[in-house]
């Protein structure tokens, strides 16, 4: 997967047929009411013309007389109009962290590449179900923004392709500024390695939730970040700040693993409380397998609700 195939659309190479074959029969359904323009598969915030009955209301002059429920008129001798729920398409946006730490790789795919596969697969899936797709990349500030549109699949792929992990990242300010972009309720997929305090992350993500977006959080981590497999005493350099500290790994491996586990648990707990889907993606796990697990779990939860 690391080798990009040459296609007409550069970013399309991040859409792996193997992944699509695995997740193609799944749907990326919004768990909330979305604001769409055309018919889609998501529940719209307004009433529409679906087959699902919503309510009766009194006839108002100007209503289409074809929508009058004649059976109810026969019983009540009043004009009632039958209303149905509307199905709509949704805005789907990927918020992709391209900070320098995302460029880390302990041997296989870098975190950013893995995130690009994730973003491309989700975008493709969304586009297939006629959702409008867009993307925003950020590190310490917003780098690129593609507004959601049904015609923006290519542009999104281009943006994914161009993304490089170059500068130190920052949560908070860029995410706060992003809230201005997502006025219409939709689905947001936030992909990052989340090297920040859980409180700060949550306070930033919570803004989207407050706007009514359905937020999915993908926490991408390299196996080395999870397992800390180093055994040679070395200087460890922070990829973003350049700071170095001498480390004897075997002395602090367990403590490190404990700390990263606590971090992911804290994030999971916080996001769950906010009804935000959160999953840790290990870059050593095949992306189709991980994405399938995530989406099927989401579907199951959607049915349960």
């Amino acid at each position, binding site marked *: 997967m690391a080798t990009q195939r040459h296609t007409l659309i550069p970013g399309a190479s991040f859409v792996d047929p193997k992944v699509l074959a695995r997740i193609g029969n799944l749907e990326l359904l919004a768990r909330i009411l979305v604001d769409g323009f055309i018919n889609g598969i998501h529940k719209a915030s307004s009433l529409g013309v679906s087959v699902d009955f919503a309510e009766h209301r009194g006839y108002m002059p100007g209503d289409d007389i074809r929508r009058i429920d004649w059976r109810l008129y026969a019983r009540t001798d009043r004009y009632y109009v039958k209303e149905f729920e509307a199905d709509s398409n949704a805005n789907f946006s990927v918020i992709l962290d391209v900070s320098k730490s*995302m460029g880390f790789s302990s041997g296989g795919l870098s975190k950013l590449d893995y995130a690009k596969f994730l973003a491309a697969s989700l975008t493709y899936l969304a586009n297939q179900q006629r959702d409008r797709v867009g993307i925003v990349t950020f590190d310490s500030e917003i780098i690129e923004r593609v507004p959601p549109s049904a015609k923006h699949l290519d542009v999104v792929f281009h943006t994914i392709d161009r993304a490089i992990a170059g500068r130190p990242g920052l949560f908070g300010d860029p995410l706060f500024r992003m809230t201005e972009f997502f006025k219409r309720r939709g689905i947001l997929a936030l992909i990052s390695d989340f090297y920040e305090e859980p409180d700060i992350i949550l306070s930033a993500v919570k803004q989207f939730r407050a706007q009514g977006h359905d937020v999915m959080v993908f926490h991408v981590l390299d196996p080395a970040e999870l397992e800390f497999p180093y055994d*040679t005493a070395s200087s460890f350099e922070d990829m973003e700040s350049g700071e*170095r500290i001498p480390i004897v790994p075997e002395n602090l491996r367990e403590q490190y693993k404990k700390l990263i586990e606590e971090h992911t648990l804290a994030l999971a707990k916080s996001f769950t409380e906010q009804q935000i889907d959160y999953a840790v993606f290990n870059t050593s796990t095949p992306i189709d397998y991980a994405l399938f697990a995530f989406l099927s779990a989401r579907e199951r939860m959607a049915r349960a609700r």
Partner: protein
Amino acid sequence: MAFLAPLLLLGLAALAVPVLIHLTHRERGQVISFPSLMFLERVPYRSMRRQKIRNWPLFLLRCAAVILLILAFARPFFTDTTSLAGTLNGGREIVVLLDRSYSMGYSDRWQQAQAAAQEEINTLGPNDLATLVLFEQNAEIGARSSVNHASVYAAIARAEVGANITRFGPALQLAKSILEQSEFTEREVVLISDFQKNGWTGDEAVSFEEGIRLRPIPIDGTDASNVTITSVAFEREPFSAAEQVTAMARLVNQSDLNVTNLLVALELDGHEVATQLIDIEASGTATVSFDPFIVSEDQLRGTVRISDDALLQDNMFHFTVSSGQLVSVLIVKPDAATLDSSLYLENALAVGNTPTFVTETITVRDLNTDVLEGRSVVILNDTAPFDGPTGNALVNFVGAGGGLLAVLGESVRWTPEASDVLPGSFGTPTARLSSRSNVLGYVDYSHPVFDIFNAPRSGDLSSAQFFQQRPFTVTNPESVLARFADGSVALAERRIGQGHVLVWASTLDSYWNDLALKPVYLPFVHQLAKHLGKYVEPTEWHTTAQLLDVASMYAARGHRLEFGRDDPVAVAPTGARLPITGTDSSVFLELAHQGFYEIHTPGAVVDVPLALAVNADRSESDLATLDPQELASSVTGRAVTERLGNLVLHERSPEDAEEQQALWRYLLVAALLLLTAETVLSNQLSQRAR
């Protein structure tokens, strides 16, 4: 164990370097990029392992390499004299260079030198080897010892002072070649000499290899008076049929003492004929002139002798004086010649006494066989070639060894009947009065006549202007000795029998040219006369160590030796008979002793021995010395150990001991091996770590 440079041991502090490397190297060695140190920074920092030495073999290797390097630079050596004695007595070879030049005869120097040499032999152990080299101008091996050193000891006692000068170069070269073949590690050259400055020029290019030491033992004599007869000069004057010779001896006082009432005696044929008493100041010179004596015999042996002083060899000066140094020249001028036609020629020949030319001028009509009797050279000054009896007489004269110079002037006439004596034929005179004058253009400087003009500023023959000349056609082009600028012959030679004929194609007066007015005229005429008269510069004396070419000497006297039939025999001053044998024309006799050599020719009808006076080279009388250490340093390339007393074992300086043991080399090699092992080990470790 001691060290030449103990301060360098402070470098052992460098041992901290491997320690620091081991404690800090790994921290700097590898840098791992990690996405974030967010969690790592929260872990309490512990560096327990970095304070430990992780690889003890590597650490010890590095420490050992550093220690060995420092020890090598501190130049260690063993000071244990017991072990040193064992080494020395385990075998050493010495070469004793004993100076026997005649300056060693000064005062008691020779006895001192012999004692010093014998003392050196006494210090030898049973396993040691000694070689005695006696040297003066040349060096020869006196004796070599094996187990018993008595032969060397005896050779020293037998050795005598020679008559030659000091030259250190050959002796040192011989010692070097002996010791370079030696298998002993302890090799030494002991140089016993008075270290005369004249013996060492500094250009000898003798250099001992590493491990050969040179120990000079200077011999000093007590300060005593020393007067040297440096040379004897002679003034010759013709006296009747013989020569009257005045001998003048030059004396130099080489010492710092004034000498008074020094007896200077002249001996002739063994009889004292004159004595004088003179005074010479310290470092002064004096010339003693004796009353003239007549040399009528073929050869007279003479000796100038002074009373004995500290150096005997230079107190006498031998010489031989030969008669027959007169060259008789007959000038034949035309009957109608002007008075001054032979003026320049006569006056030129009248000057000088080496040789003295006895000149007689006659006219053509007086020329007959009787007049030619006893003449060495006949100059036909503008007189025609002769036919008939006179012509035959001239041919016979030349064939018997006489010299003939034909000057082709105005009056000569070519006749076909003329006797064949000239090297060619001549024509009528060509005048150049209307055109540019002629000059000498080509001169054969290799010919004895022109030899002295060869050097720069030794006479410009081309300065003379020739206005008239006679064209001369030679029968053999190789006989031309000089040509004019227009290519015509100026001087040509022909050999008849044992004599020579020269033809000069112009005049020797001032009528046809101005050569007679030029400074080169006199030497030119003298050279012509000397060559034709076969004059050989007399050698009154030779110096010792000179090689005498006996065959050439005989040839110069008109004799030709046939080796194998009449081999001459030389009798040395010591009385030894030295047969002179050879198969070719060059046979050499080495003149080794001071005095008179006699060379006898057994085949001769009357054996009149030829005497050769031989004197020692007087440069040896200059006793100025050079610094022995300086000489030793220039030969060995390093400072020299002083000799201390009469120790059986020569105490060596720490530098010498260290240099000989050269422990630093082994230490450096060991350090190199350790560092190589360290490199291999650390490479393996680092590869394993990756």
